[in-house]
């Protein structure tokens, strides 16, 4: 469970900026320069070390990795894999999020059912969801469905726990006052409980996005014929170290892109949260 206030995105950048006074603008340009130099330095070190200090079979080298990437982009094959992973991530996220929200609200407003199911839900939650992957392959086959299922299960529990906590946090006095105004059970849920729990739900959605990607990539690594997870697995099995590094770079970029997208949405939601409090 993550409280809505918890800001998981602050990261290192925010800390670096804190405590400095006026020269922030100048400092930022300088920082960027240092970061670039560090990056180039590391790449150069990698290039020099490869074949001299460490066998290039194990660590490949930046030039080979870049060539592999350019080759994949040129023949378009990488886009097929990226799309497969993105598609599975998004489908899994949407299904898991919807399931988590519905389950969270349902159990949140049904004290008996939630107490009845709590030991089973705790057991399922404690289970590393990745271990379900073989089962999903059996049930849904080698296609995209098994990846979607794995991503969805990871997302579902995170969103469920947050939604549930949010519904439990709803001010009972507000619920009572709505009931005194002749609100039906459905109206209480739709007009009091859901808006009230919304910031918790969003917190859950936000932290679960990277997990959707993890689910999709893991599913592809276990059994698939496309996707970035498949590609990293395939490259590894071909002893193609440059290929493995190339895919890792693509996955990292994809994850960063997803996080940036979520931040963008959250910033737009911030307006609502200001008024919601």
């Amino acid at each position, binding site marked *: 469970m993550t409280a809505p206030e918890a800001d998981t995105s602050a990261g290192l950048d925010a800390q670096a900026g804190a405590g400095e006074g006026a020269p922030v603008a100048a400092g930022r340009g300088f920082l960027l320069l240092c970061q670039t130099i560090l990056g180039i330095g590391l790449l150069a070190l990698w290039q020099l070390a490869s074949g001299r200090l460490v066998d290039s079979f194990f660590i490949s080298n930046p030039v080979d990795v870049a060539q592999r990437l350019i080759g994949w982009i040129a023949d378009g094959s990488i886009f097929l894999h990226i799309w497969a992973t993105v598609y599975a991530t998004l489908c899994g996220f949407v299904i898991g999020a919807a399931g988590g929200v519905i389950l969270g609200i349902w159990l949140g407003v049904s004290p008996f059912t939630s107490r009845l199911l709590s030991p089973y839900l705790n057991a399922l939650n404690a289970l590393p969801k990745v271990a379900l992957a073989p089962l999903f392959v059996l049930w849904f086959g080698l296609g995209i469905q098994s990846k979607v299922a794995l991503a969805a299960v990871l997302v579902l529990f995170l969103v469920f726990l947050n939604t549930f906590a949010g519904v439990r946090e709803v001010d009972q006095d*507000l619920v009572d*006052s709505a*009931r*005194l105004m*002749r*609100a039906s059970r459905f109206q209480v849920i739709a*007009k*009091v409980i859901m808006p009230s729990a919304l910031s918790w739900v969003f917190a859950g959605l936000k932290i679960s996005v990277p997990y959707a990607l993890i689910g999709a990539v893991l599913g592809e690594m276990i059994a698939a014929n496309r996707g970035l997870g498949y590609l990293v697995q395939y490259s590894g099995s071909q002893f193609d170290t440059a290929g493995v590094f190339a895919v890792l770079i693509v996955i990292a970029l994809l994850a960063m892109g997803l996080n940036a997208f979520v931040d963008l949405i959250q910033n737009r939601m911030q307006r*609502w949260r200001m008024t919601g*409090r």
Partner: protein
Amino acid sequence: MIDLRRVSKSFRKDDETVDAVRDINLTIAQREIVAVIGPSGCGKSTLLNMIAGLYVPTSGQVFYKGARISDVNANVGYMTQKDNLLPWRTVCDNVAFPLELSGVARGERVERALGVINHVGLKGFEHRYPHELSGGMRKRVCLARMLLYGAETALLDEPFAALDAQLKLVMHDLLLRLANEAGQTVVLVTHDLMEAITLADRVLVCTRRPAKLALEQRIDLPRPRDVLNVRFTKEFKDLYDVLWERLRLEYQEDRL
């Protein structure tokens, strides 16, 4: 109109039974304003919760217009020290909330909401959110909502306790005016004896927990009342002395 017959309520908490209300008989007539006064935490609020149908009495029955209350009593408007406004809705949408629940079209409910908002003196604040308003303004929003909702009976649980003394007077005046216009029955729970006498037709003094009725006093001050000046009259002082004489006992025992 409201009839409590030998009503008792006790709560169980960790194998311990706490009696909140014991053996209360009370009849409240239509359009009457009744103030229930007693020490803090004596079970007065429990009484209101039972009239609202939020609590079921442990023994005895509560009747509303002859019908026994078995579920939430939707004929009452409830106002507590806490505002119970929906924080994500503007003043206008909060006031119109009960109409929205009963399916009134948007245009009509906004129009009617703006009417009562104007009436309680909040013109210009229709599109603010509750957290942007002062405590007194939020009380006005609650009163407007209760007014629009057309509740026959207003249950008020120390609604003005958090306001300063001057603002209290303004709200008393507004409350009396609105209750009179709407022909509402009012049950007011308070620990402020001044407030009780200023507003009520009848004041009931409760004992410490478990709450029992200790004294019942009619307040025959003429209406409409001037909420500021009524307290300086001799009649007011006499009533105050009688009630305080009895109420004091509850506080004295407290200290022992």
